[in-house]
Every structure is written in C-alpha cells, then in structure tokens.
C-alpha cells in the first residue's frame, strides 16, 4: 500500500508542485493520474520513488518511509519500483538486452556490473521480461535502431526485470502514435492484472485514461480535485479537473474520430 500523508513539494523558485496531498493506493490497483501540464502529475509520481524529495509530509510504502530514506535504503526501495518514461531513457548505443539487464543492477555486484558478467538467472529474467512484451527477437539489436513503440516496450521490459511490486509510468505514450499507444497501454493493463503489480500512470489523453484506468485521480495546481472510478469520470469531471473546456489535444483519437 502506498500512502501519501500531507505531502507537499515546493521547488526552489517558489513553485508549489504538490499541496497537502493525502491519498492511499492499495496493492494491485491500476491508477491513472490526469491533469494539465504543471499540475503536479510528474512530481507526484517521482515522489513515490524518491526522485523528487518532499518539502513537507511523508510518502510511505507498506509502512516504510520513502521521503525519509536515503543512500542504500533508498536504492533498496527503488529496486522494487519500476519506472517507464516519456522519452524511454534507453541507452542508445548498446543492445536491448543490456538495457533490460539494467533492471537487475540492484542484485548484481559492482564488479559484475562493471564487466557485464551477469548471472545466468539474471539473463533468464531479462529474457522472460522481453518475451512478455513480445520483443525478445530484438534482444541483440542496438536500442537506437528500434521504433518509438518498440523502445517503450524495452523500457517496460527493463522495469519488469526488476520484478517490481510497483510500476510507475510517466506519460508513457505521449511520444507515440495512437495504435502504438493502445498497444503499450494494453500491455500495462495486462501486466497489472496478471502479475498484480500496482500500476500508476500519468496520462494527458483522457480517452486512454477512461479506457485503461481502474481508478482516476485528477490534479490541478498541485491539489487533488477528483478521485473516483473510470466509469464515474465523464466530460464534466474532466472539465472540472482541467478548469477549462476540453480541446482536441486532450483526446488521443480525436483525429481519427
């Protein structure tokens, strides 16, 4: 269970990215966060694995504080949280397999990771992760030779290789075209249902949020303004979250529809 308690983040320069957020996320839930750019979605997600430090309040996972952890403790916590990024963040110059093996870092000694001598069990885990996202045949291909959608699937495989309990996805489909976006979101949904991994996704495409999310929360100017199921969220709800009328940019399939 992930718990936010009065969590606030103020960036130097005075920006209030998160204001007194209090929230509980039970295990195995698929939660989608929606909100305008700058509403605090990225900040909230990064507070869960400590990439962003809280100015006030606390974030705990199963009772263990993230916001107060540091050094080895923090790395330990992070090793159980997988993250995928809008810009994929793969190491372009090396193979897909090497990228996925980064997910095994925490269990690999410094010496082994220096030389690239991963244990066979770790390589097996990496291969299985690649099989789960259907891209294992590219294991030895250079990462930069893949399309956007393929790169994101490698990113998901890297996260899966950590054998995580939680999966964070920060705008995972913002750089992808509509069909590929659906493939990636479907993969995330399957992973959530079959492996029971708590999945938290930032999206700014509202139709995707409704279709793939179990629970939707809305942030506006750092504050929680909506918390409900996907069924309950309709156009009015979204308009409240955004504080303005919806536009074509907010819907993925607007061009096709």
């Amino acid at each position: 269970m992930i718990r936010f308690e009065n969590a606030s983040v103020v960036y130097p320069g005075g920006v209030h990215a998160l204001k007194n957020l209090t929230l509980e996320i039970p295990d195995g839930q698929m939660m989608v966060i929606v909100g305008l750019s700058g509403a605090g979605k990225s900040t909230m997600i990064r507070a869960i694995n400590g990439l962003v430090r809280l100015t006030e309040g606390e974030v705990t996972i199963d009772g263990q504080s993230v916001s107060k952890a540091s050094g080895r403790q923090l790395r330990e916590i992070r090793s159980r949280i997988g993250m995928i990024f809008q810009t994929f963040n793969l190491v372009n110059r090396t193979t897909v397999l090497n990228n996925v093996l980064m997910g095994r870092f925490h269990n690999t000694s410094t010496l082994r990771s220096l030389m690239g001598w991963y244990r066979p069990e770790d390589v097996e885990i990496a291969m299985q992760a690649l099989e789960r996202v259907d891209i294992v045949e590219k294991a030895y291909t250079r990462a930069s030779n893949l399309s956007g959608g393929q790169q994101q699937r490698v990113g998901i495989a890297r996260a899966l290789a950590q054998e995580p309990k939680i999966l964070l996805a920060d705008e995972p489909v913002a750089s992808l075209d509509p069909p590929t976006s659906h493939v990636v979101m479907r993969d995330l949904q399957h992973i959530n249902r079959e492996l029971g991994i708590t999945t938290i996704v930032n999206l700014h495409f509202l139709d995707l949020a409704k279709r793939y999310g179990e629970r939707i929360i809305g942030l506006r100017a750092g504050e929680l303004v909506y918390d409900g199921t996907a069924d309950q969220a309709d156009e009015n709800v979204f308009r409240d979250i955004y504080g303005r009328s919806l536009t074509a940019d907010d819907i993925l399939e607007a061009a096709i529809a």
Partner: protein
Amino acid sequence: MTAVAQARPKPPSGLRRNVALLLAALVVGWAALTIDIRLGAILEVPGGLARIFGLMFLGKGPEWSYLGRAVEAMVESIWIAWIGTVIGAILSLPVGFFGAKNVSSGLISNVVRLFLNAIRAFPEIVLAIAIFIPIAGLGPVAGALAIGIHSIGTLGKLTAEVIEGIDPGPVEATRAVGGRPLQIQRWGVLPQVLPEIVAFWLYRFEINIRAAAVLGVVGAGGIGFVLSQAIAFARYDRAATAILVVVIATIMVDTVSGRVRRRIIEGAEARAVSEVEQPEVLVPSRP
C-alpha cells in the same frame, strides 16, 4: 502478446572487434617488451620525482629574485606565439578557401590539402631546427616563423573543413543576384564561417604558447631556454620559478582566450536565432 512461442536470438559474434583489439594488444606488448628500459629504473621513479620536487619547492624554495628574468622570457614566448599565430591566421585564410572543395575546384583543393598535410606533419621544433634557425639564426624570429608555418598547416585544414560545411543557400543567393566571385566569398561564405574560424585562431594561439615555450629549448628564444639552462646547471630553484611562471602565464592566456572565444561563438549563435522567425501556434478550442 502472442500465443506462439518466440525463438530467442543467438548472441552476435564479436569477431571483428576482438581481432582488432588483439592486434592492438600485440603491438602494445611488443613495444613494452622490446623497449630499452631497466626494470629497476621504473621503481626509482617515485624517488627521483620526490627528490626533484624537494629541490624545487621545498627547503629554500623557488628563487624569487629570478622572477624578473623568467617573466621577461615568458613574455618573449608569448610574443613568439602571437606573431606565429598571426602569420598562420593571415596566410591560412586564403589557403583555406583554396582548399575547400565547394569553393575552389576539386583539383586545386586536393593539391592544397596535400600541401597542408605535408606542413602539418612537421612538429615546430623540427621546422625550427631544420629550416628557420639555419636561415634566421638563433633567436625568437626563427621560433615565430617555425610556429607560423606549422600553424598554416593546421589552421588551413580546419578553415577548409569549416568552409566545406556551410549552408549553400546564402551562396546561391549571392550568385543569383549576380555577384562576382570575390563578392560571393565575402558575403555568402565568410559571414557563416568567420566566428568559427576566429575561434580556431584563438585556440591555436593557446596551443602556440606551449610550442613557443618549448622552442626555447633549442635556442629559439623564450622561457624554454631559461628553463633548460636552469636544469642544465642544476639550479632547481630557478627551474621552479620558471615552471611557475609558465603555468600561471599559460593558464591566464587560456582563460582570457577561452572567454573571448565563447563570446564570439555565442554572439554568432544569438544572431542566427534572432534571424529565424518564430511561427505562431494556434490551438482551436471547442465551442
């Protein structure tokens, strides 16, 4: 997710890369094993270094009264480097134009590039020893000439490469308005490349400071002479002074030249950006 089992690919063979690495390792091994060094000499290195360091900086320390002489020599080295760079810069500009495939003809540019490669192959000391000291005698003029001629080689090559990398658009435009060849170079090519070329000149000046310091060792004036004399007479305190002067002067020149270079490059980029119009983006909103 497919239901069909996927075949796992085989790892690629790193044969070509491994062969290259093996050859490199063999070459290095040959060099290490056949070179004429006493193994004992290697072990004596830390001791020798400590001894020299002690003679230079500990005990009585550097001889400060020698500072005036050292600074005078360093200034001479700076003049040598300056004149050498000026010679190199002025002469390399037209040579660079002739060496650029897109500006001059293919044949001429190839000949010029070959010529530049030939000049570049000789370190400044070799030019000094073989040509300029015999001609101009010992002293700073020979040093300046040696540095100047060598710089034409490097600067000429860099200039030609920059010119070859320009955007052909403005050149086409100056041709379209009926410009004469010199006008085309002056207004179509030069504005695009001048900042980068001037930056190269300054960078070359920084390097030439070091070359000038070195040339003194063979008698072409400057701090190199002072330093080698001090060491030859085992006056390590004076050597310490000379080394300090070299380090401080070089760092100062590097810093000033680096700042000027950055200003020039930034100035050029800022002008380039402001010349591009920013289109407006309109987002239609639903009624």
